[in-house]
Every structure is written in C-alpha cells, then in structure tokens.
C-alpha cells in the first residue's frame, strides 16, 4: 500500500521523508548522518514529497534515494547530472537533489558534473567525499591523497588528487559550499542555503568511510583540532577561526596567511572580510589545506545567474509567442511544394 500524502495543512515530519526500505550502509558510515540531516531539513523547507526528487549515480552514496520517501532514481555510474538535466528540462518545478560521491562525480562522471555546474541547472548537488571507493572495496579515488595504500595502490597512490571545491569553481558553479557529515546542524543550514539558491548549488560533504578509509578527515573534524582546522565563512564577516576566534586569515590575491588578532600588531580590521561574490577569494579559500591552514566551510561562493532550465523554458515560450503553437500540416508544407493533379 502506498501511503497517501497527508493533507496540505499538516506539516510534514522527518518520518514522512523516510522510506520503508532498510538502510544498508556499514555501521558507523557517515552517510547515515547525511541522510538524517536531509530528512530533518526537508520538512523545514516546506517542500512536498511528490515534487522532491533524489537522483544518484552508482556507489555507496548513490543508494541514498532508496531511503527517501520521495521520488528517486538510482541511475548509472557518473551520469546522474545528465538524468537530472533531462528532468529539469521537462519540468523545472521538480526539486532535484543530486547525490554523488568523489568517484562517481569526479572520476567516471567528471565530465557531466562539469557541465551541469557550468550550465547552472537549478538543482542541489551533494557530493559525499570520503576519498575512497567504498562499494568496490577500497580502491583509491580521485580525491585520495598521494601515498594512500589501497588494493589497487599497494605501494601508495601516485595520482595527484583533485580538489572538489576548486573543480566546482573552475566549472563556473554559482554556489559552492562545504560541510561535514556528522555536523548535522550546519549541514542542514547549508542544505537550506543551497535549496534557496536558484541554479546549480554544489555542496561538498566531508564524509568518513569507517571500513576502507577510516579517519580520513579526522585531522579536520576531531574535537581537539576542529576549531583550529575549520573556518566557517559568512558573507560580510571577517575570516576568523580558532577557539576564541582570535585566529584570522589575511588574503592578498592568491596568497593567504594566518595571523592572530592581538599579536604582532594585527587587529580584527586587518582580517579579510568574506565576500561570497568574489570568485578570486573563493579560489584562494578553496585551496587552503591543513595543517598550515584551516579548511573553509559554509557558503564559500554565491553569485547567482539565470538557471539553465528556466532559460530553456523561456526560449520555448518565446518560440510559441512568436510563431504560435506549431502546426504539423503547415510544417510539412513549408518551403517548396507542388501539386500533382
């Protein structure tokens, strides 16, 4: 029996977005937290179940749609952005959440991710980055660090990793952000910002794979280092971090340096103020890596532009407005015809 949608007046809850399928990720997988975050966020967004779509590729993260009681499409490896584009071209009102991973989105599907971002299709892209191939049992991924030992790199990976955030910026994405799997509250806030943004919004989520790459983000997420290694940016606010928010970044072009407010003559006024519309600043921030720098989180870049699906729909409307509804008889008789008596 399919559940009937509750009356519109009733506010939906997390339960309404939870499917009857048993979740089959490994115990302790970061995906559980992300699932919980989205199931918690959707009711707060006031969206309907029937218009919410989760589209995924292949990989551990791509099982996500089965656990959401919305419309879901578990497609093929790397191609989810293309399916999502097709959906939005038919019905721009559908609310599409794209679920991908570092292998799905940046290896086999790197091309499609590039194009869905640069076209600015109005969807939310959630990239679970655990820096490993989980479903195929532990091979190094395009975000794995050099030196990572895995079944396919027993002497250590020699592939230089790709930086997902820099990739998204390079693809001319108009909304680029980063969150952490287990930090559900800020993640939920990011989902809301991404949802509010018109166009393609990119969310990199640092996610832990406890089986094949356990602890890959611990140097950023562990309680004892988190305040020094995480910089949560906010538009118009200085780039401050650290336990007492005394550490700050001074960015000059592509150069960044960490200073402490109150030391060496630096005051809060010296700290660079985050401007989420600055592509140059976003690039510099995206490239900051521990241990010298903190990693940046939150909405690093937001600079809206017309959404692709709406532009396509506008051309269709314009064609109808200028030429009227197409007439097949007229089309078949357009150009040169002649009559045989």
């Amino acid at each position, binding site marked *: 029996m*399919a*559940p*009937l*949608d509750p009356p519109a007046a009733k506010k939906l809850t997390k339960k309404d977005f939870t*499917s009857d*399928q048993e979740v089959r990720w490994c115990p302790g997988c970061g995906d559980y937290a992300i699932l919980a975050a989205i199931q918690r966020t959707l009711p707060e967004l006031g969206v*309907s*179940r*029937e*218009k919410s779509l989760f*589209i995924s590729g292949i990989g551990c993260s791509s099982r996500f*749609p*089965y656990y*959401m*009681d*919305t*419309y*879901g*499409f*578990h*497609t*093929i490896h790397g*191609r989810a*952005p*293309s*399916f*999502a*584009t*097709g*959906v939005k*071209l*038919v*019905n721009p*009102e*559908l609310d599409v959440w794209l679920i991908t991973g570092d292998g799905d989105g940046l290896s086999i599907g790197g*091309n*499609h991710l590039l*194009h869905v971002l640069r076209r600015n299709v109005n969807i939310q892209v959630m990239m679970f980055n655990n820096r490993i191939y989980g479903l195929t049992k532990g091979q190094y991924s395009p975000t794995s660090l050099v030196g990572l030992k895995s079944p396919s790199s027993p002497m250590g990976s020699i592939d230089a990793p790709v930086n997902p955030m820099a990739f998204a910026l390079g693809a001319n994405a108009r909304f680029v952000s980063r969150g952490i799997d287990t930090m559900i509250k800020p993640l939920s806030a990011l989902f809301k910002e991404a949802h509010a943004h018109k166009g393609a919004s990119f969310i990199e989520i640092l996610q832990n794979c406890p089986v094949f790459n356990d602890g890959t983000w611990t140097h950023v997420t562990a309680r004892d280092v988190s305040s020094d290694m995480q910089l949560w940016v906010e538009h118009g606010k200085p780039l401050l971090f650290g336990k007492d928010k005394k550490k700050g970044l001074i960015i000059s072009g592509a150069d960044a340096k960490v200073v402490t407010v109150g030391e060496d003559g630096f005051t809060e006024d010296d700290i660079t103020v985050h401007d989420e519309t600055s592509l140059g600043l976003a690039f510099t921030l995206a490239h900051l890596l521990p241990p010298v720098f903190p990693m940046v989180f939150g909405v690093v870049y937001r600079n809206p532009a017309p959404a692709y699906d709406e532009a396509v729909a506008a*051309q*269709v409307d314009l*064609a*109808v407005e*200028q*030429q*009227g*509804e*197409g*007439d*097949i*008889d007229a*089309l*078949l*008789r357009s*150009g*040169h*015809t*002649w*009559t*045989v*008596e």
Partner: protein
Amino acid sequence: MGFNHALCLRRPRNENHMDTPVSQDVTRKTLESVVIRFAGDSGDGMQLAGTQFTQTSAVAGNDLATFPDFPAEIRAPAGTLFGVSGFQLHFASHEILTPGDEPDVLVAMNPAALKVNLPDVPTGGFIIVNSDAFSKSNLKKAGYEANPLEDGSLDGYRVLKIEITRLATAAVEHTEIGAKSAQRTKNVWTLGLLYWLFDRDRTPTKEWLQKKFAKKPALVDANISALDAGHAYGETAELPTGVELYKVPKAKLPPGTYRNIEGNTALAWGIAAAAKLSKTKVMFGSYPITPASSVLHALAPLKHFGVTTFQAEDEIAAVCSAIGASWAGAVGVTSTSGPGMALKGEAIGLAIMIELPLVILDVQRAGPSTGMPTKTEQADLFQALYGRNSDAPLCVLAPQSPGDCFLMAIEAVRIATKYMTPVIVLSDGYIANGAEPWAVPSFDELPKIDVKYHADTEDFHPYLRDPKTLARVWPIPGTPGLEHRVGGLEKDFDSGHISYDPDNHHKMTQVRAGKILGIADDIPEQKVELGAEGGKLCMVSWGSTYGSVNEAVRRARSQGKDVSHVHLRYMWPMPRNLEALLKTYDQIIVPELNNGQLAHVLRAEYLLPAQSLAKVAGKPFRVGEVLSAIDDALEGKESN
C-alpha cells in the same frame, strides 16, 4: 517500367570529343529517365547545383531520387581527389526508387572530379567539363600526367569542353561582386546550361536565389546573370553534333501535395508530429555526429511544437538526459550514429531495466570505429539488436526511404510509449541525405498516440503491468501518493523493490523479453512487395536498400524470372508471419550493406538457409549488382 533511358541517351559513337560547333537542332528528344552527376571541389557548389536541379525537376513533375556524396573534409585542399564532392540525381517520367546506377551525364568542374567519377560513366556517356580548371597544377593534383581533354583518353565519351569559369566571370562583370565571388557563379552558370539541355524552367531557381541572397542584391543579380548566361550559351552557341536537347515528361504520380524530403528532416518532423499526436512533450537530447547532426538542426527550430532540444556534452549525457526526461513524463529521444550508439549502450540498458519510453535514432555510417563517417552502411543491426550487457531486448525499426523516416519516427514513439521500452530506429547515411518527392500526409490521417500516466494510488507499485502488453505503468514525479524509487538494480516482480532473488531475476528476464516479442501482435504482418508468396527465390532486404532491391526484382520479373521481394521495416520483433512466409521459397538472398548481419539473424532465428549478398563499400547497391545476384541464384551459381 523500363530503364531503357540508357538506350536513348548513351550512344556508342565514333565522332566524340567534339570541339567543333555544328548546327543546332531545336527539336527535343524525349527520354524516360536521366541520371546526372554533378562533381567538383567541395567549394565548387555542386551540392547547391544538384539540389536546385532536383527542385526544378520536381516542379516539372518528374519522379526523382538523389544521392549526395560528400568528402570527409569540410574544405579539402582545392583540386585534390579526396576533396571531390558529388551529387547524383535521377529523374524520370515514371516511378523511380534509386538515384541510378551510372550517370548518363557527368558534370566535372575540375580534373580531380573527372578522375574520380569517370569510371562510373558508361561508354558513350555525356561529360561536361570546365576546361578552365584543367591547369597544369590541377592536373598534377589529380594525378594526371597528360591532359585527358587532349590526349584522347576520353574517346568513347561525348565530351563538351567549356571555359565555364571564364564565361561565368564575364557574365557577371557588370555586377559589383569581387573576382572571387564572380568565379563562384560557375556552378549556377552550369546549371543554366543544363536547364537549357533538359528543358527546365529557370524561375524556381531565380526565386530561390532572390530569397537566399535577399540581403545581398548584388549576389542575386550576379547569380541570375550567370544562370541566364549559361542558358543563353546553350541557346546561341552551336552545340556539337551528338549533343542533343532532351525532355523528360512528367511522371504519373498519385495526386496530392508533394515536396522533396531528406531522411533526417523526415525523422525530425516525425518526432515533432509524434509530440502533437501524443499530446506529450518531447525532449530531444543529442550530441553532434555525422551523419545524424541534421536531425538536431531540424528539431531545434521546432520548440513551438512541444519539442525541447538539448545539445548535451557527449553521447552518454544525451541519452541519459532523454531517459531523465521520460522519467519526468516526456518522450525522451536521442539521435546518433554507430560510435555514439556504442557509448549509449549502458544507458539504454537502464531504460530497458526501468521500463521507460525512449527513442534512439541511429543514422548508420560506415564503421567500425570512426570508419568512413560520410559514407553509408547498415552495419549497426547487430549493435541495435544485441549491443548491450546481459539480456537486454528492445524494439528495432528500419525506415525504407526518406519519406518513410517520418512514419517510422511516429511509429517508434507509439511503440515506446505503449510498451514502455526503448525503440531504436535504424536509418543510414544514404536515406538521411538522399531526397525523394514525398506525398505530404495530412495530420488528421496520422495515427493518434494514446499516452497515459498512472495516477491511481490504490495498490500502487512502480512495476504494475498491463497483463496484455506487459508494459509497466508510467507514474511521473509530481504525482502525489506515487512516490517511488527506480533504478538499474533488479526489481521484484510483485513489489518493485530491489531483489537479488534468483528465480525472480529469471522471471524478470523472461518478462522483459516477452514484452518485446509481444509487440509482434501490434505491427503489420509481413507482406510480399513484389511477386508471389512462395517460389524459387526471395530477395529479403531491410531499411534503405528497398529501392535498389525492389527495382532489381521488378526488372528480373519483367524478364519472366521467378523471384519475389520481401522487405523488412520491423527488425525486432520481426513480423509474426515472417518465418512461415520465408519458408515458402526455395532460396533466400539477403542483400544488405554490411557483412551479412540480417542473413545471420534469419538463420539463427528461423534455421533458414538465407544467403548473404553483402556490400560494404560505403555506397548503396546498384540495381545491376542485385540483378546479377538474382540471375546467378536462379542459374544455380554461387553469388557473392
């Protein structure tokens, strides 16, 4: 219906090579049919001359068929053999189905064009050459050691040598176009001469020029002057003996409104018509590839017909966007050629697995790999039938002519939406670019397509099936109460949930196959095109070879031979009576432009002793080739 035009136009001659103008005869000789081939550099405007002659002949009431032959290079170095572009036109006072085996008239704009095309011209054939282009360097580029216009190597043909470049340039001297543009009017000048020779009206071409260069009056003036000058040249310059004036009377065609149509335009318009007939949006996702790109070009301006076109980043994205569109309730369509088909295989498998409508237009070209992209072939039959991982059956159709592409595109949408399945339409480079006069149907006569989305929430699961067609329901996102998940993982027959159950997988495999086989009850029975049911020999063709095979069987039958023609447009499932029908013949020959693929399928499916007549040359069959295979078979010789 005779092809005795050869007897009329070609005459074995002694006095060829006619440089000396003799008196001119104004009476015209009536011919039943003529084949003209225009050949020159890619930049010589031969395609334009050919299409204009085609339009004008259509207006004159002839039946016709064309075959453009493009070089692979966009603009190959001038004067080279590989840069030769050709356009062959067959027009007649009777019904014709092919662009003709051999040109009666060859227009060669330079030595390379002569060299490439001369082997096809029969002895006594009529050749018009632009002698201005026979310079030392052009002769060298074409690999001629001596000038063939002077060394007697063209004895045996009737050759009209004209300084076309000089005459055309002189004709447009009064206009304000530059020297380069002036020289480029030589194609239109030549067209004018041919219009005189074949008694064609210049008005349609003049009107076309006025429209085409509406914003450049100088070019209109120049081209019309060149056209008139070529025509006047024919009228006033005394043509040599042996060059006669001809007329080809009107053909008796069924009454109606006609137009010329190319296969790719017909596919595009068929898709647009299907959007209207089904009252369903079409989302056409495609990636440019020769020779399929013009389908995208033809659909992109048809947005007001309910067609959204999307130029994807690659072949895979194109098909995936189409599948996404189908999931959302549109008819997803993609177009491609062989290499693109290979890339789309995995996604087509997904569409089979989740049972969504999808139409794939495969305009086949010569392969494998990149092969010969501008040349035709029918070698994607195996790929269409079997080219996916695991047991992944779908429906395959093959239009038989440019006009048939329109109907088969509609048929593909009908089957895809009724049976929730991908449908592949196998066109090819020959019918994609070839044109034929087409009796334009009226929209009201076209079959309506009934599309239903599932909306009932009662006992819903996404793999509910119609017990008769086995088609699953089409519940589209946005419908309250039908939220569900689909994907490439195997589904339980009853609940639609993911299932690894062995028996269920076996059952689902059978269901997917059975659904497709059931389409055989929903398509026409196989008919015999020509000849009797039963007999000594049956020629079984499919797709674009219809014309040559039909014409060959027609001629063989007129000579009293016991041969029939069966032509397939439904490649999978095959018509339900096909096996019984084919078993009524002693011999079966399958002419096809591949290395024997349909012959193989018929042998495998029906244990029939089908023999292959394979041609894999990047060109369609000549009627003569099929005819001699018929003769050989009936005389008990091995063919092929």
